[in-house]
């Protein structure tokens, strides 16, 4: 965001804890409807419908994978063609120099390899991982976010953020517990 508060806030956000994924989806929907924008939900497994509830959408990974695939394909085919026709022409089995059927397997493997590497790297890059320190680790009970509990955190960055009203709002969502997350 363009304007950041001059002094770094001591608070990262307010977090609510749930024990049911369906309640979390409902809470995320209500949070969005209430006008909050800088919030995130945390769960120990992918919860389908949660991203939709948060109106979160990102199509960059499939596109990156697609272009990675095209790059790999061109590299694989181009490289073999260049070797066979230009750099080191060699007659093998009386076949023409441009033996395209025999180039298909390596072209395919190159396509898959580059697609896979692109996908893997872009997943981490876009998620901002690896990130050994995260303020969310300070949240109460957060070690259960990777086990059996579901969390929803409204961050102080949110333009509508106000400690008292956010706490009250989250308490109204059926949370087990609402607590502060120190930055």
């Amino acid at each position, binding site marked *: 965001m363009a304007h950041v508060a001059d002094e770094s806030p001591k608070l990262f956000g307010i977090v609510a804890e749930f024990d049911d994924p369906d309640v979390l989806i409902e809470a995320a929907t209500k949070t969005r409807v209430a006008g909050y924008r800088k919030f995130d939900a945390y769960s120990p497994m992918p919860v389908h419908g949660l991203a939709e509830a948060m109106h979160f959408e990102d199509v960059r990974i499939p596109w990156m994978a697609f272009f990675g695939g095209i790059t790999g394909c061109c590299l694989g085919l181009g490289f073999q063609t260049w070797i066979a026709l230009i750099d080191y022409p060699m007659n093998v089995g009386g076949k023409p120099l441009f033996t395209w059927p025999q180039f298909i397997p390596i072209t395919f493997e190159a396509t898959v390899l580059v697609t896979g590497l692109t996908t893997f790297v872009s997943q981490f890059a876009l*998620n901002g991982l690896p990130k050994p320190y995260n303020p969310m680790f300070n949240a109460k009970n957060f070690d259960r976010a990777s086990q059996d509990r579901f969390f929803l955190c409204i961050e102080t960055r949110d333009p509508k953020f106000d400690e008292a009203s956010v706490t009250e709002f989250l308490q109204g969502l059926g949370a087990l517990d609402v607590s502060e997350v120190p930055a």
Partner: protein
Amino acid sequence: MAINSIDSSKRTRLVPQNFIDGEHSYTTISEILAGVVLNPKPPTVWFVATGLGFCVLNVMLLAVTYLVLTGTGVWGNNQPTAWAWDIVNFVWWIGIGHAGTLISAILLLMRQSWRNSINRFAEAMTIFAVMCAGLYPLLHTGRPWLDYWLFPYANTLGMWPQTRSPLEWDVFAVSTYFTISLLFWFLGLIPDIATLRDRSQHPLVKCIYGLASMGWIGSAKHWFRYEQAYNILAGISAPLVLSVHTIVSFDFAVGIVPGWHTTIFPPYFVAGAVFAGFAMVLTFGLPLRSVYPQIKDFITEKHLDWMAKILLATGLIVFYGYILEMFYGWYSGNTYELALVYNRLFGPYKWFYYALIFCNGIFPQLCWVPQLRRNVPFLFVLSIIVGIGMWLERFVIIPMSLTRDFLTSSWGYYAPTEWDWALFIGTMGFFVFLLFMFIKVLPIINIFEMRDLLMKNHHQFGHGHDGHENSEEAH
């Protein structure tokens, strides 16, 4: 007949099965599965198996050392059998690996929820099996310290690897397969490593898992991209696994040696790989179920039933391949093809061929019996027999064709040496050792996918189900 009563009581067979037995919550799943890893005292069997694996692993090291110091002449390979156990074992191991990718990628794309509890373990098998497999061609080059020549890099000789050769295709296929399998495996592990990080008590252990978890926090936005990436990797792994064994089959099929040159080879090799791989999943999965009885709720009899069905289906494809090989050999009327048919049925290695037909063709037909598909001792025996059968298949293809060349003057007989045996048995030790080490440090069952499955079960069967409920409107 009372139609209405049938209506509700019998319809259950059509609704998705519940693949988690017993009463479980997100808490118990995390506890049980992470507990297998974090338990400070592994069962005694674990020590025995790991120790045994370690001892046999040393046989492999010995065999490799002796081979590197002496040369590939220590093996039984000699003209006309330039390819022998090294390639047999290479194909056998890499085939075993394929079940892991099939389970993790193809069954994921087909939304088969039963895969969730066996994929992690099978993926680990893939990686270890590919490591065992890769060893053979690398050693077979004769000068393994120059193996980097296999990769295209700008060198002072101004030469490139011959990319028209199926052996070079293998280099690309196997290295791509290993890389992608490793990435896919690691990506799948991250959320579970985060669970281990959050559950472990010892600061050093926490620190190691913390680093390996890449700071995973389970954010919904992260999950969204994570699933996109996971599905794309699954999507490319599915054709990749097919391509790998297809290319392995091309090693043979693009040549014109009778018994090698046949167009059914690609799908028949792929099916054979999956067949052997599922057998290996059972060979290790069944003992694991008894060593760690707490995972029986997650690897249920329904899973065993499914695996037996897949074994039956892939076994039938392989058997179809055997029948077609013989039929078209006979049908072709080609002298050399006919000689091959004769050689398989009546030649010096005929017992290998008959044993192959029994192990892969006849014996697995017992899986048609539903009771046997859930019978643990039977499945264990079956898995061993299939493993042997698939090894025999490669033996039948390779030395049997090579010892009967087009010219009778180049006929021969092949027998392995003790170093062939040592390396083969040694790689088994390597595999066992790695597998048990893996069980100790990482969860054998994908924890987050089991939670996901539990959530789906809640939607499907309702909370507090007894496992046999109807799907009628439970949300």
